[in-house]
């Protein structure tokens, strides 16, 4: 981790630095002490909307549901002119084609989960096939899950190779690697998984599937942001970050933005490098934006639930 020579560039993930959980949590809570007011708050809220991967990953997802979500993605709240759109729609592979059609010309990306989401307990051949299918259907981004069983068994090479293989199958699509931090147990393990993912070719690292509790937390996200920072200084390569699951309030989203800004700096403050994986965050942000405009909170019934 510590020297920037070629050997470390390739094997740096074997030397992940340790993480002190107490200190980490203290640092994470310090970001929540920032008081975000006035124009800074409004800018932050707009930015948050623009960083959302609007997500539906249910067994009961249907064509109708996906179409409605795609409309919402482009028209978050039409009574407020000039709002940004979300960054992407996140769906299962079977829904990509429907989303593609519904989002045509909008500039909104289509992210598809793949590789046996959420458990990843399918043969590697199937994972590769599923990834290729998703890309062929038109996914701009692939959200894969790592093999947590292998990782916890210490088979880091397997995990590394699998990510590299999926990256290969992605072609031009950007690869987000879901660590499922809620299953990894310690901050040291989360740090190691982040390093493995980045060295194996991830374009983004992502906390959670949203199917396991705990999902994204600020300390977990901070460990991953710090891994991204170290990787950047080692290789010059920027990696994106996506916390997912459990971020449903604007205030918390703003705390996350403060954390990104003060850990990675201004270059990461856009949806090319930072995303929120969320299904209900958008409406809370919209409610806050309307409050900033009108001075009053409006009833939840004024915001569409899709």
């Amino acid at each position, binding site marked *: 981790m510590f020297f920037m020579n070629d050997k470390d560039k390739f094997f740096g993930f074997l030397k992940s630095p340790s993480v*002190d959980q107490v*200190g980490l949590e203290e640092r994470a809570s310090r970001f929540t002490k920032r008081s975000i007011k006035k124009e800074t708050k409004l800018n932050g809220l707009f930015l948050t909307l623009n960083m959302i991967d609007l997500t539906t990953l249910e067994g009961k997802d249907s064509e109708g549901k996906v179409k409605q979500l795609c409309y919402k993605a482009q028209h978050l709240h039409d009574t407020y002119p000039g709002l940004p759109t979300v960054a992407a729609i996140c769906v299962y592979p079977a829904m990509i084609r429907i989303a593609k059609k519904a989002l045509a010309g909008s500039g909104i990306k289509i992210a598809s989960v793949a590789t046996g989401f959420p458990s990843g307990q399918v043969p590697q051949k199937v994972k590769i096939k599923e990834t290729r299918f998703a890309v062929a259907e038109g996914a701009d981004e692939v959200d894969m899950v790592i093999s947590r069983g292998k990782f916890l068994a210490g088979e880091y090479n397997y995990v590394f190779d699998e990510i590299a293989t999926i990256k290969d199958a992605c072609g031009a699509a950007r690869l987000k690697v879901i660590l499922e931090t809620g299953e990894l147990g310690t901050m040291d393990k989360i740090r190691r998984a982040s390093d493995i993912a980045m060295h194996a070719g991830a374009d983004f690292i992502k906390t959670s599937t949203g199917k396991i509790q705990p999902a994204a937390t600020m300390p977990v996200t901070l460990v991953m942001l710090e891994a991204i920072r170290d990787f950047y200084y080692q290789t010059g390569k920027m990696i994106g970050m996506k916390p997912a699951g459990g971020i449903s309030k604007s205030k918390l989203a703003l705390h996350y933005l403060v954390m990104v*800004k003060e850990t990675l700096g201004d270059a990461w403050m856009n949806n090319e490098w930072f995303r929120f994986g969320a299904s209900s965050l958008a409406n809370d942000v919209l409610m806050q934006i309307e409050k900033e405009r009108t001075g009053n909170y409006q009833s939840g019934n004024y915001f569409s639930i899709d």
Partner: protein
Amino acid sequence: MDKKMQTVLPKKKKNTLKLKFETTRSYAPALESTSAANIKPQYDLFINGKFEAPLSKKYFPTINPSNEEKLSEVAEANAADVDKAVKAATNAYEKVWKKMAAKERGKYIFRIARIIQEKARELAIIETLDGGKPIRESRDFDIPAAANHFFYYAGWADKLDYAFPNKRTESIGVAGQIIPWNFPLLMAAWKIAPALATGNTVVLKPAETTPLTALKLAEIIQEADLPPGVVNIITGGGATGVALVNHPEIKKIAFTGSTEVGKIILQTTAGTNKKLTLELGGKAANIIFEDAPLDEAVEGVINGIFFNQGQVCCAGSRLYVQESVAHTVIQKLKDRLESLIVGNPLDKNTDIGAINSRQQLQTIQKYLKIGKQEGAELYESPCALPKKGFWCRPTLFTNVAQSNRIAQEEIFGPVLAILTFRTDDEVIEKANNSPYGLSAGVWTDKGSKIFNMSKRLKAGVIWANTFNKFDPTSPFGGFKESGFGREGGLHGLLPYVNLINS
């Protein structure tokens, strides 16, 4: 979070990699309102439960160091005023406090603690106005810690018979207490709470530049209905302190401040019967080993040296970092330095406030000059500083040698000297190679190393994988020229009692 800052992509060339932070310009001001702070235009001396005009007839101004505006003026006690205060304390000791049932004493101290909590917001604002420290620190640290100290010692008042096995305790008499300007209310709490709990009465002198929260504490003591004369608070400068130290009826001196003044007090009290505790300067070594949790260590180093603008006697002002990780640690420190917000102490987002006084600023600037002359490399935050007031950018010195003055002498400002080491033995030798010995920090992932290091480091407080953590239950104090005696915890009772075999 400003939109115009979103598109700056760092350059790809290895040697020029640098993250960009523009934190200071990014957050809209979030000022704490000063309307809750009631500051009178003039304060008298608090003697015998009342505010009384000074016999000296003199007053001096106290200013806000962040804009140099006058906040109020306070009385300057001369030797006659000091004598009056000590007489009041003696009288209260003999007639009331000494004889009072211990559990009743405890009730008064609990009451003071609760009123501090009730007035926490006002006290925090005044602490920030008078001393220049960020409101985040006075709100989240100074004031709650002061209340906690009173709560803790209130609990001891009726349990002294159980504090020291086979010993009974006896109070001493009048304690003369002199406190510094870096944590005005907290230091007053450190001094007053154990003295009262053990049955002594007090004459306290706050620092010349930060008298206001001590005078607010006097109002709180009035409100708590403490018997007159048990606590007397007199303001003034060095001469007032000298008169207090020399007063024959004082039985115990407690001083927190510079080593220079501490030595003078030690000389003047020699041959007298006065008990003495001194809590003086420091030049703490903060040691990072290569296996340390580096990001948390960097955060600890930042808090260790920039907490209260580095004006902390236990500040981690010497960083020893193992050579194998020095490059990484320095890089991380520089990045973190840039995300510190320097500015109006009343802004809730401010990390670094104003330096306490012009005099202190000049001392810090002198050392910045010395560091550069000694050949150390200076790196400072690129932040803009306000035009009025006393300000210093958070600063790192790299390429520092053990023989540099900036590595040996206490600067008492936001200036970190970074040195490197190779082996455990080497760093122990270097860390202990200081006239001071107040605190130290060790950062490693290895538990056994923590125990080994803490056994060999000559310092009163040693933090492992953290820094600048305080608790009323934990004793605090120094080795060598950092002073003697302990404050806080069970040990903090000792300087205020005589032990008698029971």
